[in-house]
């Protein structure tokens, strides 16, 4: 379930927590890696991907959103 945080790249700055309009992320403790607590409320807008200064966030688009092509 999206979004995914690369723990090695994450600097724990909290930018994704601040920016997410669906309030998907939370930081369980000071300086912890953010947790996608409410992942099923993700709009897949990609704001967290864009705003992460460490490029540590990526989206995995879930299967029900597969694009149907010919």
């Amino acid at each position, binding site marked *: 379930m999206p979004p995914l945080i690369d723990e090695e790249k994450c600097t724990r700055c909290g930018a994704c927590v*601040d*920016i*997410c*309009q*669906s*309030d998907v992320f*939370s930081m369980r403790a000071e300086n912890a890696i953010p947790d996608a*607590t*409410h992942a*099923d*409320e*993700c*709009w*897949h*807008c*990609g*704001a967290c*991907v*864009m*705003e992460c200064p460490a490029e540590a966030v990526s*989206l995995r*688009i879930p299967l*029900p*959103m*597969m*694009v*149907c*092509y*010919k």
Partner: protein
Amino acid sequence: MQEQIIQTDVLCIGGGIAGLMAAIRASESGAKVVVAEKANTLRSGSAGLGNDHFRCYIPDIHGPDIKPNLESLARSQVGGAMRNMTFMRTWMEKSFDIVKLWESWGIPMRYEGRYEFAGHGLPGRILASLKYSGKDQKSVLTREALKRGVTVMNRVMMFDLINSNGSLVALGISPKDNKLLVYHAKSVVLGTGLCTRLYPSPTPGWMFNIAYSPNNTGDGRAMAYKAGAELANLELTMRWAGPKYFARCGKGTWVGVLRDPEDKPIGPFVTKPDRKLGDMAADIWHSAFEDFAKSGKGPVYMDCRGISEEDYQYMAHWLRHEGNASFLDYLEEEAIDLKERPVEFSTYEMHLSGGVLYNEKGETSVKGLYAAGDELFGGISCAATFGWIAGDSAGPYSCSAATPDAHEARPRIEERKQLIEGMLGRKKGPGWKEANLALQQIMQDYAGPIRSETLLAAGLSHIRRLKEKVGTAMVAQDGHELVRGLELMNLVDLAELLFLAAMERKETRAGHVRVDYPFTNPLLDKLLIVRKTDEGPILEWKELRR
């Protein structure tokens, strides 16, 4: 629960395009302005990831006669049905000023040095959509608001508006520090966007896979109603279309042809990809995708095959600005090449196309209460233009208005506090997701694509039972769930009003399909108003000034 009182001249509820534009303009009159935003103004709402086309009239390009632009607007998806000519003329006349303002603030409104019009185009007619690079528009507007001394309060869920003897008292929750915020404002501008999450998304049980922001839950409409303002045409609905299963706005940005499985274009407008026109077939023929599927002739594809590399780059550039970045990234990861692969399009879920009735000055029917943008309908250019206009009205009004007297709001504030404490304190009961799914199934089955007197009457009684449960039994385990719970209360309030309005409008019109009245009645070419009285909601018909 701790309470904090915030005094301000102007309170903008919602920090989207409309709210920020209102805040910027109102602050220029010397008013003290606060923006209360549910998420973060930098990336919140439907415009948070950007937009790429802005409906406007530029005399040097369109010519001295504004009429063709007004006609195009009246015919458009965001246009005419509920607007009078004064409103539309004001919008178009002001639109270029807003374009120039945005440009002066650093939002790129030109393409390769010129004003570029493309998309949503009919052959031989004017093009009214100005292409612009709006990916970072909200950070620009936030910066401009802050520069003018506006206070931006992020992560505040506004949920109630009390009209206390002519003074407006607005209530919000700051879930992070568990505070009730009580705003005493001389004027309030509503700009909370559209109302989504009333109807199920195309993916069963997946409420957040929708084209518009799933966090826009009609809070402004519900608050306007509570404060006594008129809501218009809540029963009329709208459905957008785009890539099947990956719900995104922006079909006007695609450079392709809508074709059936035999590669035959479904519409008469284009036969090969045209960067200037796009394909208007689905704008004009809203039910096309369903009609093809029902007749066994579907699916319908957006087919970009034959597009030049240059035109493909042009389209991809604009899709990125139209909030489709994650969609493009997905295509790349999955190696789906639009130059070779037609992708299926479909119609998305229903959402309201009615809302808070505001006029060409941004005024609602309640003194000191203003609204803009998608509180009714209209898209980005409407939000920008009427946000500005609402701020232009609210600022000077507040500078001369009396200090609000919040005394009479106290009983209501206490009642709301108890409701919140009840939701947070209860150990057992339904959560917001359960309530939202229950709401969506009632909406779909009783006020969905098929409506009739008996279905609506039954649905209304179900909604009222659900409303009772939501108000007395819902559980919130933390601040996040409290925000969602308060959204649910607003949604259920609006659902009840929608049922009442849908029963009153005994005809078929604009996404309101009454199978017992399968025709459009020209005598009902009017606004259906619902507003709150001491005796409950009342419905009234109002002539639409043409």
